[in-house]
């Protein structure tokens, strides 16, 4: 018996029973497509939840001077002068796991514009601060490197500040306000962020170049803090270690000396992120598992029934000279053709359906190659197995029994 003939036999059997072949294939198509779509929606939700948590600043790292003892008296961190601009430059240039870094110096005072005034805090930062705190400039623009070098008296203000100083409306861009007695020109307005989880108004903020605050307002050479973003939330711990070694080297600390700074990360957020991610992963595994089982059982049934109803045909083929191996090969070829074709169509439909969900229902979707592979492999293998197994049973029958099978 040669392979070409067997292939031809299988093809003929399929093409003469297009409806049966199509229905069998449909089981596999639905199985594959539903698994891919479910996983795409699940993955998309997982990603979007992760992104929302990350937006809260789960990868944020804050460095403050601290842990300094003088004659047994723990000092107020803000009075300490251990963090220098040099530290900032080194972290910026040498830090390996950091995507953004900004110095932080701030001063509280009264803001005045015309007849209106309000208390607020001005933050001296670099441009990276926007990235770190997930802020964005809505109107106008951020200050530039040039502004930092020249300690320009420019600022970006939050919504609350605008409301306080410009109660009658009017474009704040280009207006000059005074902080204490120093004039600042407004060059941008931040997009509103609302209140944070602690009830603090995140819009009551003024950002200015850190050089301006250090030289013109505080007249200091040290920093009150440095804020960084780790590249990803997972890298926070590595980033902290990295920063620690840079700072210990800069501060010439001996092996046994304690750090003269403290580094804090958003551990609550990151543990929340981890537990959410774990939960979503379990959820996804359940979705995938159930979809695969449902798809698999559907495929199993339809293949099993379709082969069982062909027992007489198998008997006939054996009576005209087909060996058991010929019967098995034929059904295996048929099952492979149906399953692989169905699998490919299923992948196309599954991906298509995911995009329909994305563009019509506006749900976040994310198709991962492993989910496509997984559903394709599981469904095709199920299809092939349950095409092969009943055929094996039928081929083992006596031809007499098979041909009289009702």
């Amino acid at each position, binding site marked *: 018996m040669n392979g070409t003939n067997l292939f031809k036999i299988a093809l003929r059997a399929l093409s*003469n029973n297009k409806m049966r072949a199509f229905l069998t294939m449909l089981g596999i198509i639905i199985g594959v497509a539903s698994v891919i779509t479910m996983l795409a929606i699940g993955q998309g939700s997982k990603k979007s939840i992760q992104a929302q948590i990350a937006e809260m600043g789960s990868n944020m790292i804050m460095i403050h001077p601290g842990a300094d003892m003088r004659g047994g008296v723990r000092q107020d961190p803000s009075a300490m002068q251990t963090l220098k601009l040099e530290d900032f430059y080194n972290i910026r240039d040498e830090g390996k796991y950091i995507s953004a870094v900004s110095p932080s110096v701030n001063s509280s005072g009264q803001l005045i514009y015309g007849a209106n005034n309000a208390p607020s805090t001005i933050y001296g930062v670099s441009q990276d601060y926007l990235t770190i705190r997930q802020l964005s400039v809505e109107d106008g623009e951020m200050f530039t490197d040039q502004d930092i070098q020249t300690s320009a008296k420019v600022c970006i203000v939050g919504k609350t500040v605008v409301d306080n100083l410009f109660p009658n409306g009017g474009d704040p861009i280009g207006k000059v306000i005074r902080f204490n007695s120093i004039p600042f020109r407004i060059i941008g307005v931040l997009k509103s962020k609302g209140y944070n989880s602690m009830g603090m108004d995140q819009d009551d903020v003024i950002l200015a170049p850190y050089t301006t605050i250090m030289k013109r307002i505080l007249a200091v050479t040290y920093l009150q803090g440095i804020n960084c973003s780790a590249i990803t939330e997972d890298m926070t711990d590595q980033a902290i270690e990295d920063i620690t070694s840079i700072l210990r080297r800069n501060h010439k600390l001996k092996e046994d000396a304690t750090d003269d700074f403290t580094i804090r990360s958003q551990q609550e957020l990151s543990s929340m992120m981890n537990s959410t991610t774990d939960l979503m992963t379990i959820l996804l595994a359940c979705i995938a598992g159930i979809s695969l089982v449902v798809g698999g059982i559907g495929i199993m049934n339809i293949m099993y029934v379709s082969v069982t109803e062909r027992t007489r*045909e198998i008997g*006939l*083929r054996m009576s005209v*000279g087909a*060996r058991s191996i*010929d019967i098995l090969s034929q059904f295996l070829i048929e099952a492979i053709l149906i399953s692989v074709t169905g699998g490919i169509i299923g992948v196309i439909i599954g991906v298509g359906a995911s995009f329909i969900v994305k563009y019509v229902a506006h749900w976040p979707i994310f198709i991962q190659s492993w989910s496509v592979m997984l559903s394709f492999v599981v469904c095709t293998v199920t299809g092939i197995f349950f095409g092969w197994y009943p055929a094996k049973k039928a081929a083992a029958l*006596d*031809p007499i029994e098979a041909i009289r099978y009702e």
Partner: protein
Amino acid sequence: MSKAIIELKNIKRNFKVGDEIVHALRGVSFTIHEGEFVTIMGTSGSGKSTLLNLLGCLDTPTSGEYFLDGVSVRTMGKNERARLRNHKIGFVFQSYNLLAKTTAVENVELPLMYNARISAAERKEHAINALIAVGLGDRLMHKSNQMSGGQMQRVAIARALVNDPAVILADEATGNLDTRTSFEILVLFQKLHAEGRTIIFVTHNPEIAQYSSRNIVLRDGQIKEDKVNENILSAAEALAALPVPIED
């Protein structure tokens, strides 16, 4: 004397049904020569189906010797018997057993599909010739579900002929057909007989024995009667004598 196609020597076949042993065949011996048209008759339970399965190499005897065209079948394995069926035997079943929704030509080609030595072109040629021989030259591309019972049985006979078998085994081949169509099929079998083919026709209908050259009657697993028919009736004449069906 022409060559012996089938030689049975004291064939016994036992089946185990639960704890009991059923003796379906209790020592059957006969020889069928080339060119004979033998009917094997018997009531149900006489062992004729068992005998047919043994003759068709679908089953092997418990004891005894069976030579088909000079080859001993008893010791053969499953695959060798499949090959033997493919080369030496043509089956015609009561319920036709055509492949569904498949053209006459493809149905007839089926046995040759399992014979790797025959090319696609030869296969098609043989199939067409076999269909012409059974009078279906004008229905080559009709599908099995577009044909009448008589036509389907003709396709089945063509399928039995296509591998040029040593013997054609028919199992109640007219059992599902009306009288007229049954005679048409018998005419065909007589024509094949006249062409020198060896035919074994298993039936419970005693009428059919009149149209064959030899009749073997089985009862309780043994041969009750084995008689050469001196006066073979012509199925064609019987067909002509039938009342003409009323056309509507």
